[in-house]
């Protein structure tokens, strides 16, 4: 739906029965007396046509922070298992076998370990990228690169680029939401807009330390006025604005923008809490996502369900974040705990999106900022270190080829050797699936045109359905 500012204002004011607002609306609707159109204050977030026809309209990123292990999940390494305890690439490091059982899944026969039993049931939806690689293996810079393409300079995040290129469908909700983002590891830079206008920055809901059921979006309710009184207050405020616009006689676009922004804000504060309220969901749905008091999957389950509700309501991009997959030691226990928290919810999300007919137009991305090494310096072989040279992420839904594994690391898992996909390539591919050409999605700043992929990026069309 493409509403003009005026239609929006009209929609906003009808039903409140405020005479003054009607007057104001008449003023806005009437052609300016001097025949000037004024500088139309374009709504930067209005939906924009893509560069080419899109395969997906929205994106959900299940961010497995800390670096989950590929050889424990989606990339089976029989040679590694056989060579367990032998010396790895470097002295003092021993090869570590996979700690979980492997099975072929679905009709496609993709290998998925028992670590992700629930997600494994969706093997035929998954497009597993096992040739991923990135430039740096420290958490924070890698996470910044994952989100913004750059780990040294402050650049707009992928979600900001998506909003910049596509706008968003529902003007009453933020277009880009980051649920439970980490405070460290670059913090808000991971959903920041850098030199893009601030309107494109992500809206954070809570943070990683706060269970999402307690998380709040800031400034959504007036702490002293009832909703009705606030509407009356807003009516008065809009009269001040209308008075001012009348004084200006002619070019009122700046003031019109303020008037619109208040109506949008007012509607956003009504709509967002509704989207965040899970009480209307059935028990069956809650169970599907693993939501329940005391369950390990409760928190991430809620995140996933929120993501579905937001995508359903027209949010362009939602990112979820799980706690740390960074097991240098205690890998079995740690990865089991992380899987207990995220596996069922992730699978539930795929099921729910599929049965609601949303998965075809929603791209789901799963993974961390890098993966883990095939070896360890620990004696008990129960740990792995950071590996940026080869790791796995997966895509599902929105126009990607299901039941398909693209790329591979070497027989041990040190380095991507086949179907290599650099993070820049992944960004280019995601933009492409969303209808944007990563080379044309540019913004002029400080004398040059910037892109999410800078001067890199190749669209990996092998993954298209």
């Amino acid at each position, binding site marked *: 739906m493409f509403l003009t500012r005026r239609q929006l204002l009209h929609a906003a004011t009808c039903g409140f029965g405020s005479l003054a607002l009607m007057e104001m609306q008449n003023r806005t609707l009437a052609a300016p007396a001097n025949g000037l159109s004024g500088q139309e204050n374009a709504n930067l977030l209005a939906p924009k046509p893509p560069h080419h026809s899109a395969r997906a309209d929205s994106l959900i990123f299940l961010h497995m922070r800390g670096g989950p292990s590929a050889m424990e999940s989606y990339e089976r390494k029989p040679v590694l298992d056989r060579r367990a305890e032998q010396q790895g690439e470097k002295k003092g490091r021993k090869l570590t076998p996979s700690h979980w059982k492997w099975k072929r899944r679905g009709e496609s026969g993709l290998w998925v370990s028992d670590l992700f039993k629930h997600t494994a049931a969706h093997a035929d939806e998954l497009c597993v990228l096992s040739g991923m690689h990135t430039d740096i293996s420290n958490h924070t810079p890698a996470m910044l690169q994952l989100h913004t393409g750059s780990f040294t300079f402050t650049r707009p995040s992928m979600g900001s680029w998506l909003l910049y290129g596509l706008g968003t469908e529902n003007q009453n909700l933020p277009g880009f939401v980051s649920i439970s983002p980490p405070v460290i590891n670059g913090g808000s830079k991971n959903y920041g807009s850098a030199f893009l206008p601030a309107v494109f920055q992500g809206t954070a809901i809570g943070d990683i330390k706060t269970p999402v059921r307690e998380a709040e979006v800031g400034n959504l309710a007036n702490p002293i006025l009832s909703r009705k009184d606030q509407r009356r207050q807003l009516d008065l405020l809009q009269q*001040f604005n209308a008075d001012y616009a009348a004084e200006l006689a002619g070019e009122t676009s700046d003031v019109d923008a303020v008037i619109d922004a208040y109506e949008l804000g007012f509607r956003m504060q009504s709509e967002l809490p509704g989207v965040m309220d899970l009480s209307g969901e059935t028990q069956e749905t809650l169970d599907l996502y693993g939501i329940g008091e005391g369950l390990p999957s409760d928190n991430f389950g809620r995140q996933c369900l929120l993501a579905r509700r937001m995508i359903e309501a027209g949010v362009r991009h939602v990112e979820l974040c799980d706690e740390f997959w960074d097991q240098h030691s205690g890998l079995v226990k740690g990865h089991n705990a992380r899987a207990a928290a995220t596996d069922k919810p992730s699978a539930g999300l795929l099921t729910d999106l599929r049965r609601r007919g949303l998965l075809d137009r929603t791209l789901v991305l799963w993974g961390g900022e890098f993966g883990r090494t095939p070896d360890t310096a620990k004696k008990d072989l129960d740990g792995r270190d950071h590996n940026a040279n080869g790791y796995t992420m997966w895509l599902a839904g929105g126009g990607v080829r299901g039941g398909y594994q693209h790329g591979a690391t070497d027989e041990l898992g040190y380095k991507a050797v086949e179907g290599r996909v650099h993070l820049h390539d992944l960004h280019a591919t995601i933009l492409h699936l969303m209808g944007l050409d990563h080379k044309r999605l540019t913004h002029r700043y400080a004398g040059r045109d910037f892109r999410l992929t800078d001067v890199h990026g190749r669209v990996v069309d092998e993954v298209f359905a």
Partner: protein
Amino acid sequence: MPLREPARNSANRASPQQEISMQRLCLSFSMLVFAFGSGGSSLFAQARNQRAALELFEKKIRPALIEHCYECHSVGSDDIGGELLVDSRTALLTGGETGPAIVAGKPRDSILIRAMEYTDLEMPPDEKLPDSVIADFRRWIALGAPDPRVEPKGTDSQNGAAAPSEQTKVDLWSLQSVSDVSPPPVDDHRWPLTDVDRFVLSRLEQQGLQPNRDADPITLVRRVHFDLVGLPPSPQQVAAFVADPAPRHFEQIVDRLLASAQFGERWGRHWLDIARYGESAGSSRDVLMLYAWRYRDYVIEAFNADMPFDRFITEQIAGDLLPAATEEDRYRQTVATGLLAIGSKSLNGGNLKYDVIDDQIDVLSKAMLGLTVSCARCHDHKFDPIPTKDYYSLAGIFLSTETRYGGGTKRPKTAAEKRDLYLTLTGDVDPEVAKQRDEVAKKIVQLEKQINSSKKRVKSLQSKIPEEFHDQPDAEIPAATEPKLAKLIRQYQGSYWVLKRREADHKATIGLLGDEPDYAIGVRDAKKILDANILDRGEQKQPGELAERGFLSALGDSCEVDPIDSSESGRRQLAAWIVHPDNPLTARVAVNRIWQHLMGKGIVSTVDNFGVSGVRPSHPDLLDHLARRFVHEHKWSTKAMIRELVLSRTYRLSSEINTDAYQTDPDNRLRWRMTRRRLEAEPLRDAMLAVSGLLSLGRPSGSLVMAIGEGEVGRNIDTSVLDEPFDHRSVYLPIIRGIIPEQLRLFDFPEPSNVQGARDSNTTPTQSLFLMNARVTIRVAREFAGRLLRDPENYSDDDRIRSAHLLCFSTPPTDAQIQRDRRFIQRMMKRNEDEADHRRLAWTAYCQSLIASAKFRFID
């Protein structure tokens, strides 16, 4: 047909004919390669092709454009169709509403062709052009669309017959020396007050435009207050000027504002934007930089003292190397070098040393020279005459400089550690003394631990004994006391004494500590003075030849300075080179920034980019005139420059719309009116605090970052102090890069990691929600209401309403408005009459809508 315009708000967009398009420059570049880069045998063939293409343009294309397109698509058109111009190559490549009109080399991707073919658009609208003409255009575009036409200047070259001289690297306008231009003659001799006005009026008259009338006194006095000090005028100040709006009175007001301590807080903040001021490392590990605020205060003081701008620049680059007459001077000059240390840095990953140098080169070149020199880190600058070698000549200067910005990811604990990480400004920096201090400090920490455990024990014992013994360490224990209890009481009394003793010890030990030295962040010359190797593609692994330390070769020898000795970094010479009176960039860039802050938009609208990819000046002669006056007349005095501009007639123009002028020049490029502006985040917040009476005008000591202490956001620090009310001016809010204060962040505060001399001005629903719901907004509104209700001058609600309007808008309300506002308040009170303080509540709601209104936020 893609109708997307991936730019921002149309109001912020430079019109196509002003932009020198990047595509065009890439094209010239690729044409060079095309012509000369592809091997010997075909070289001549290529050049021949090029000549043939130009011939084609002259014979077929140019006449067709003039005949069929210029009526609606040239600078001389009355109404430019689709915002598309076709009268210069830049314009064609930049395009209009539907994107670039042509894509050189790709006729099929060129909208122009598709429109001529009547595929999506139909142009020219009357009749389709003959197929042969369309074929000519196709061939011409396929040949790279060579086009000798430069941008027409105004209307004087609208027939497209401009001289075929390309804007090339060598004749970049901003590198030409500043010319001495006399003010042009004007027809209307009565209007101009100053030479500035003559420059402005002359351009307007050329276009047949008239300047607006002067703004009314209320608008003018409000404007000048916000512009000079960032605060609204008091109702009394407004009334006084309305009573006597004579020019002399206005001059007095300007002088008062320039002399006030609030001036530096407003104009210092402008500088902090381009100094990418921040108080933490930002980027990957957001480690706090505890002493960055000293640089902030330095900047504010420099503006208040009207330090000559050349001196200001020099101190920031090389203050530590300059002679200092007094200890105070030395202190200040050291702090000044903070500019080079406050940048954002990636402490975890990347190439820290060279990234810091890059940041230093970036800030100096953009902030002071308006050039994007850091583009040349990996390759010769694509557009500007800046070879990679120049970059590494500058890099050598900073490679020979030691940058001290405090802690990395490891927190400094002892005085010795701090001495290694910071610059020490005061006190004895003798290592022996520092060692003693550290021992004392250790003892203090130990005592604090002991005191804590003592406190716990006392508390726990106290809970087990009768109340009469609490805090009575000397009380006698009656003999009849049950032995077990008596024992507890004795233990309690013993512990109590231990606690007291330790507390006394602690106090005494702290006395031994003496004053901690003042630390700062900044730079000093490194022990090793080096030239830098040119790094191919910026890769440290591939060091190339050495680049002798020096400056930008594009300026040639025009600014002669002392040679750089092998024993010094060269920062002193670099500073002297930048502020050399013959440096064509520094003064132009500086006066352009001043102009922007007063007039809403720079004469060069890309204020940080005076390179080829920047926008050309709207009034080149005026810019040069101001630059010369700044250096030679005003001796680099910022205040004198501001005063001159503010006292011009141009500054006094009303911001209202004049239909004729608007149609010719909607962007107000020629300055027929004052540009209406939105208050930036800081003056908006300050004005809210000011009208509510909460504003504390004194300077807070240091920064809240000091109260948080050494550490890293999200890891090991307690930032709860940031949530407490802070009523100082916004320039003093802590700028922790990962936690920008909400009210700044939501209102287009610039990303503090980047040099950004021009702020965005977006209007968003999240701003609305902040003004509708945020606790800080409600607090301000409540205080404002309290102020109105308390004020003994207010006898009635009508008085209060009048007073509220005057405080917020500087204008009195009409009778109808008073009536309406009163009705709102009365009804709000009635609806909430069950609430104890319903009167305050109603007034709070009222006051909030005033400060949230558009009128409060805009300067006309």
